[in-house]
């Protein structure tokens, strides 16, 4: 049974994939509407790359389905509907940038003109350069041009800016913005939270092969923002702390408790009422980074 609504750019339904005992992707449902720019976040091993591989037809799901504008991934790749820039894709060192783009363009029925793809990726000045002589950031942008050359409706980027310096990264995202302003759909996996915050309409957080959170950047922040209370509370048990009002999660380590709070005021009042011996109390704000870690951390106990 497929729950993907018609017209979706990407429909992922009950997707699973394991490697031996490891459940790399453990039941993912995700619908991406045309025009959405979605950031895929998660720690290493969360299943991002495996999901991306299945989205591109590079690997087969154990169960579940993936569609790209209603097509099977491999068909979407063949028709140029989906384009991608992966981490480990390589360039031929002996071919020039222009030749490489022309070579891949020649494989599609309706490619962008080579000059246009080069231009959009900001590598027009590198056209005659051998790929073996490019810097890491230049190589990434040439691979971006390769992803653009089929003029895809859906673009998938796996850690696109990982080898780029700050300036190159800015140029890259400027080029991306131009592309997304034409109503294309983008799914990008990244480690940089600020990139997700700045460029994505929507953030999908993965943890241990599952979707841990899914929503706009603001929504994601709301679910995890708040404050953290730490204190020394003799004899406190995690179970009792977790049920305090305003507390999302609790942890006890070496006599010191850590409460992740949605409402730290309510939590503190309740804490002091129930545990009058609480001392050495600190309240800190949760940054997006901590929030990310909190959301993607393995479930403890």
């Amino acid at each position, binding site marked *: 049974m497929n729950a993907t609504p018609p017209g979706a750019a990407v429909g992922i339904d009950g997707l699973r994939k394991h490697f031996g005992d490891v459940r790399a992707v453990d039941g993912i449902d995700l619908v991406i509407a045309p025009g959405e720019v979605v950031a895929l976040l998660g720690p290493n091993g969360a299943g991002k790359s495996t999901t991306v591989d299945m989205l591109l037809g*590079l690997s087969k799901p154990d169960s579940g389905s993936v569609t790209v504008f209603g097509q099977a991934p491999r068909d979407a790749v063949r028709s140029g509907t989906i384009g*991608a820039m*992966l981490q480990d*894709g*390589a360039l*031929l060192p*002996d071919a020039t940038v222009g030749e490489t783009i*022309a070579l891949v363009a020649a*494989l599609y*029925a309706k490619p962008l003109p080579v000059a246009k793809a080069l231009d959009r990726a900001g590598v027009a000045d590198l056209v005659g350069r051998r790929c073996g002589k490019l810097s890491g950031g230049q190589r990434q942008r040439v691979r971006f041009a390769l992803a653009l050359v089929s003029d895809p409706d859906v673009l998938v980027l796996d850690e696109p800016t990982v080898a780029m310096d700050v300036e190159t990264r800015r140029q890259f995202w400027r080029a991306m913005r131009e592309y997304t302003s034409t109503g294309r759909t983008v799914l990008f996996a990244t480690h940089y939270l600020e990139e997700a915050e700045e460029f994505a309409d929507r953030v999908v957080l993965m943890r241990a092969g599952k979707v841990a959170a899914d929503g706009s950047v603001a929504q994601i922040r709301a679910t995890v923002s708040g404050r953290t209370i730490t204190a020394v509370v003799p004899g406190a048990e995690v179970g009792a702390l977790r049920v305090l009002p305003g507390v999302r999660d609790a942890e006890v380590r070496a006599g010191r408790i850590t409460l992740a709070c949605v409402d730290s005021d309510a939590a503190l009042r309740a804490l002091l009422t129930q545990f009058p011996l609480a001392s050495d109390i600190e309240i800190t704000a949760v940054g997006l980074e901590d929030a990310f870690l909190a959301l993607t951390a393995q479930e403890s106990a």
Partner: protein
Amino acid sequence: MNTTYLFLELRRSLRSPRFMIFTVGFPVIFYLLFSSMYANSDPDAKTVLMAGMAGFGGLTACVSTGTRIAVERSLGWQRQLRLTPLSPSGYMIAKAICGMVVALGPILLVDVIGLATGVSLNPAQWLQVVLGTWVALIPFAVLGVLIGQVATGDSVQAIGSATFMLLSIGGGLWFPPEQMPGWLRDIAHVLPSYWYGGIGRDVVMHDIDAGTTVLVLVAWTVGLGLVVMRRFRADTARV
């Protein structure tokens, strides 16, 4: 097959120093060297040498296809291509065709130099030496693909070089099989390169058994082709 793609592949092949040295340079140099050393006054020996070295260059071009496939695989280029409409089998067919087209280079060049240095054949014999040799390269083009599938980027240079040298020498492209010791001649008969080389040698030796030659070369093509397809299925199932 897409001509733009093929053309760019060809251009890359022609640009590689390895191609210029092994596939074009060696056959030409060895032909000139050996023919001046011991075939100067023997037109038949010169003809056999020309056909042998042309065949050596062609065979090298096809087997070297494997080198390129393995190197490109270790680079990650094939993974990049999997994000395009080009299927893995299409990629390999393109490589094999590319090897065949490139092989025309040394075959024609050695034969033209042969003509210029006094090899005299009638048009039908020329056709046999040039076109016959070229068509008979098909099993070696398939072999090149197989080498590309099984070798790693590190090992493929050694495997490729060993393969084209052993096939060339064992198949009598360097020294006519008549000059081989008996045991080697027995081994030679099993090699596809013996029958492949026989097509060129025949214009002097007149010893070809056309039926057997075709049968052996087709059998090798089919056999290698089956291994390639099997290997190919295993590869695509894994990723």
